[in-house]
């Protein structure tokens, strides 16, 4: 009995459609989130993440409807987020069918939000999303979709978030995101060793070796990717077989 490492496809949406971009800019349409989710559910994904990356600009009802449509297709866990700024917004997202919410910008500005949501729904429902970029002394936390630097250092912020009740960390390397240069194993290992909750590595995945590296060197509990799964470049089942053959514990559905 070993907890399997999770493979998580991520759907970045504009609230309604899946969009793709490199390092958070240059978006293009990549499909219907419910249709993609149904495919991932069939193909052995361990969980699905749906983010509203235009949340600060658009209305929420569209995204809540998207969550409902996605949840109806899934018999695996669903995490949703993007622009969640208050307890009642988190509640709406969970009621729409998500099992967990991700917090990012709002948690940096008002860290109490983490505990408010954890107190009502439990820590297992709160994922702290951290977008980090290398700087001289370590990793700087960025907010607003990677556009705005903060005073926070990523490892410290992860530690604080967990103390406040986050049950998981979704860690994105801005330097790697969309580049296909592989996960940032150094960053992931630093955060994973610093906190007692699971860490999901994100940003940079291209080939199965990238996943192997982030599970082994990066100590990641789960790994997330978007475009390589959407485009069918990397079938999830083939990725899991690759990992299993190299001694990584993964769930292979029959």
């Amino acid at each position, binding site marked *: 009995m070993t*907890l399997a490492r999770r493979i998580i496809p991520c759907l970045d949406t504009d609230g309604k459609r899946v969009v793709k971009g490199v390092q958070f800019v240059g978006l293009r349409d990549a499909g219907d989130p419910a249709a993609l989710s149904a495919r991932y559910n069939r193909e052995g994904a361990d969980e699905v993440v749906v983010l509203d990356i235009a949340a600060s600009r658009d209305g929420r009802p569209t995204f809540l409807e998207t969550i409902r449509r996605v949840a109806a297709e899934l018999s*695996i*866990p669903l995490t949703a987020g993007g622009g969640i700024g208050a307890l009642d917004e988190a509640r709406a997202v969970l009621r729409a*069918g998500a*099992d967990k919410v991700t917090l990012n910008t709002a948690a940096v500005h008002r860290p109490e939000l983490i505990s408010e949501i954890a107190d009502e729904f439990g820590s297992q429902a709160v994922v702290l999303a951290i977008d980090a970029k290398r700087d001289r002394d370590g990793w700087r936390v960025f907010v607003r979709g990677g556009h705005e630097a903060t005073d926070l250092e990523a490892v410290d912020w992860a530690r604080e978030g967990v103390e406040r009740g986050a049950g998981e960390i979704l860690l994105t390397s801005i330097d790697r995101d969309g580049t296909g240069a592989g996960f940032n194993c150094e960053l992931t290992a630093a955060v994973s060793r610093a906190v007692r*909750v699971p860490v999901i590595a994100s940003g940079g995945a291209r080939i199965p070796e990238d996943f192997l590296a982030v599970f082994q060197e990066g100590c990641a*509990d789960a790994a997330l990717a978007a475009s390589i799964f959407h485009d069918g470049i990397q079938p999830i089942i083939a990725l899991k077989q690759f990992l299993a053959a190299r001694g990584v514990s993964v769930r292979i559905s029959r």
Partner: protein
Amino acid sequence: MKIALVDYGAGNIPSVERALVRLGAETQRAARAADLESAEAIVLPGVGHFAAMMRALEKQELLPALRAALTRGVPFLGICVGLQALYESSEEAPETAGLGIFAGTIRQLPATSKLPHMGWNTLQESRPGGVLLRDVPAETYFYFAHSYAATGEGAQTVAKCDHAANFAAVIEQGNILAVQFHPEKSGEAGAQVLRNFLEFAR
């Protein structure tokens, strides 16, 4: 036959409902004691905090009807905190009493492994011949999301899981069945567990 889904505001009620309906079951949300008094089968979904659940059940005056149904032999399935509620108490909320159907206290899993125990894990059958794992192959993965668990021994334990400590993943005693994992989130394997419960309840 209708499945009464105990509705005390738990987050996973819609997904449990959806999973049961997909299997052809008829469900009805039970928010009042009267709904449980006439129930032919009961599912208690749970997620989150032990005390929040017990308080909500108490506030809606569901506890006596739930106890009576369990005693009456109504087929019952508890999920996650819905399993934990069957024990006497939990370290998560030492002042809050559970239903006390089974002896013992729900304990926090050792912090030597990452908590919450979040993700997919396999089971080890400790008492073959149970209802819920019928037609479920060995080494099948189920989805867990919890930090507290029934770590004590008990004759009701049908299968265990391990995350820094052994704990009950499936328990069965007469009409009372429960799982620590989330069958509604465990893909085809979870659907099989729910199918087995529906078959049992019929």
